[in-house]
């Protein structure tokens, strides 16, 4: 293996490029129209255009990707996460083209990618699953049948996409009146996101935590589970903060959960990196939720507490190497790590996406800080893709110190030109319930509802005055100045600027200023 085609974009493409570099492999990038200037293009050895910005015409366009693999002489393909990472046809097509797919087999993707088939596989391996329907709802099921099936599962319940992931195609239903609307919405979102509208029901557990187990499996039958990740801090079913280890997991529970996760993976002959997600109830009982047959967004926190480079191991496993990591060591975390997913969203406006040009970006650094980012000053956050701009990770000897580091790093992080979720994280990390670890998967949505849109960005009168001062000084420095009439002032200001070395023009008060 010499050249790896990275069939992705953004921070994960950069992450994979870094692993390639450290292994002496040549990274090949692909880009859509709007990504020509992106970091993953500039960091790569070679980069190829694969089509227009819409994902369907570029990063989801399997033929275009395979064509680049051929042209560039790549011998392996890393799919990252999202896009085609869990698409068994793509994995099979990569293999059929004589290339190595850096991930599990197409068969494993197909089996575990279907949420209903995966639940059945977990049950066969003796692992409890969240109560719910065994089969997807028929696409043409009459409303009355849907309601009857829902009654059997019991309320509150979740409508989930069979092909789901990342919280898309998922809806909570608290009673019968919301059911049919929620099924319709979940189906439509699932069709858009995954090309498959099938949905099923799961009972909603009372205040569960989301705890997941990272696995690596080699092609020689070894499966190694890692210390758990706690991912209960979610907004609209999307993880926004992850940490490891979980405050809710005792050593005995860790032993039980990681053994169960490994049992499920072994039972389906799973290879490469994958994650088994569990729900953990208030009594310490855990239930199989689903398996992600790919590298997870939140993999860095596991790397921070185990010292294992998961992407490097993905590549080594794909080359046929044997896992030789100490299974005991990766269950014993060194310190504590936490990740915040920084999004180009406006937390003060219902978290609406905030695409646009980044004017200024300075990432935090220093002890225990890792920032996996695909963004930079001068780059646009495109409207076409997930608006995550960075994963900010803090590591320290223990949780309180890790939180202190994260708060410090959030304060250091400077992004202007777009709105980001940085102020939201500063708020969250100051909440007593969060600090004490008293939370569950609905915690954040409940807190946000209680806040009722109260802004996270404090409107400090001082900042307002500083903005006024900065604007006036900027105008003075650039030589643009007020004049008695609009239109004339620009010329006058420029002439004066030339004559006097950008000294301001003195004049009346009715003009305009331009940058």
């Amino acid at each position, binding site marked *: 293996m010499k050249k790896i085609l990275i069939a992705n974009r953004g921070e994960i493409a950069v992450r994979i490029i870094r692993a390639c570099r450290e292994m002496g492999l040549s990274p090949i990038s692909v880009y859509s129209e709007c990504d020509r200037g992106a970091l993953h293009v500039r960091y790569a050895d070679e980069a190829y255009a694969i089509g227009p910005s819409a994902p369907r015409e570029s990063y989801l366009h399997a033929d275009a990707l395979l064509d680049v693999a051929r042209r560039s002489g790549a011998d392996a393909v890393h799919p990252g996460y999202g896009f085609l990472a869990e698409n068994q046809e793509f994995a099979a097509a990569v293999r059929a083209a004589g290339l190595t797919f850096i991930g599990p087999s197409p068969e494993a993707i197909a089996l575990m990618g279907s949420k209903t088939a995966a639940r059945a596989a977990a049950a066969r391996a003796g692992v409890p699953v969240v109560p719910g329907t065994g089969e997807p709802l028929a696409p043409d099921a009459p409303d009355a049948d849907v309601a009857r099936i829902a009654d059997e599962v019991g309320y509150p319940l979740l409508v989930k996409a069979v092909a789901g992931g990342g919280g898309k195609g998922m809806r909570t239903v608290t009673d019968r009146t919301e059911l049919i609307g929620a099924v319709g919405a979940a189906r439509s979102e699932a069709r858009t996101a995954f090309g498959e509208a099938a949905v099923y029901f799961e009972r909603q557990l009372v205040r569960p935590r989301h705890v997941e187990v990272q696995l690596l499996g080699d092609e020689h039958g070894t499966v190694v589970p890692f210390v758990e990740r706690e991912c209960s801090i979610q907004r609209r079913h999307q993880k926004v903060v992850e940490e490891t280890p979980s405050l809710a997991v005792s050593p005995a529970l860790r032993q039980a959960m990681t053994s169960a996760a490994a049992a499920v993976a072994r039972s389906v002959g799973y290879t490469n990196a994958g994650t088994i997600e569990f729900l953990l109830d208030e009594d310490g009982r855990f239930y199989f939720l689903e398996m992600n047959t790919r590298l997870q967004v939140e993999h860095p926190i596991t790397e921070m507490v185990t010292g294992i480079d998961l992407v490097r191991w993905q590549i080594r496993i794909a080359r046929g190497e044997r896992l030789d990591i100490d299974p005991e060591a990766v269950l014993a975390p060194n310190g504590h790590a936490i990740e915040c997913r920084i999004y180009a969203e406006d937390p003060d406006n219902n978290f*609406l996406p905030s695409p646009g040009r980044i*004017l200024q970006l300075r990432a935090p650094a220093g002890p225990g800080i890792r920032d996996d980012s695909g963004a930079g000053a001068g780059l646009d956050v495109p409207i076409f893709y997930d608006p995550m701009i960075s994963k900010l990770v803090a590591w320290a000897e223990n949780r309180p110190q890790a939180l202190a580091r994260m708060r410090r790093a959030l304060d250091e992080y400077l992004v202007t030109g777009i709105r980001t979720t940085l102020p939201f994280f500063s708020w969250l990390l100051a909440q007593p319930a969060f600090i004490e670890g008293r939370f569950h998967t609905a915690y954040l949505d409940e807190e946000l509802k209680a806040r009722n849109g109260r802004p996270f960005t404090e409107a400090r009168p001082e900042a307002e005055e500083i*903005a*006024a*001062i900065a*604007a006036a*000084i900027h105008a003075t420095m650039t030589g643009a100045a007020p004049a008695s009439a609009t239109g004339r002032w620009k010329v006058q200001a420029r002439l004066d600027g030339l004559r006097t070395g950008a000294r301001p023009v003195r004049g009346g008060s009715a003009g305009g*200023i331009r940058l």
Partner: protein
Amino acid sequence: MQYEVEIEGRVRTVIVTRTGDGFAVRVDDHARIVDAVRIDAHVLSLLVGELWPTHDTGPADRGTDARRRLGPRTSYEVALSRAGSAQLIVSVGATPFTVTLNGRRRAKDVAGPAGAGPQRIVAPMPGKVIRVLVQAGDAVLARQPLVVVEAMKMENELRAARDGTVAAIHVKEGASVDAGAPLIDIT
């Protein structure tokens, strides 16, 4: 140099005077000494020193013993970008402000969350209208969801900023909209 600076709906008078190594700045009646350095096309670093206002006896006193009367020098990083002909977006830390310098007074963004009067709900980005949740004539409450626009693979609920009545609906479900396209008017 005197500027009328409109910020967050308020007009402030800012007087900037070059001094030897910086600027003396007065916002309304609050005097400060500012050291300003341009970092790049968009970014200024400001060190803002408070002047103790009670002992300020006038310009004659200012030059002689300014240093002793300086309070703490607070560091700010400020990013400026142009937004329209006379408007700047000025970000102090993470907080962006829309600033108009000496310009004609602009009506505040009608979709803004604060203030009173009619609201126009506009598409925040290009996308597709998935659902319209209200009808013309409906009474709506602040933060009530009005319309769902799908963009960046997510469905986004756009909400009313204040209580009001739906005056007009400009789009149909299924329509593709550009950024800034009017969706719903509320009076």
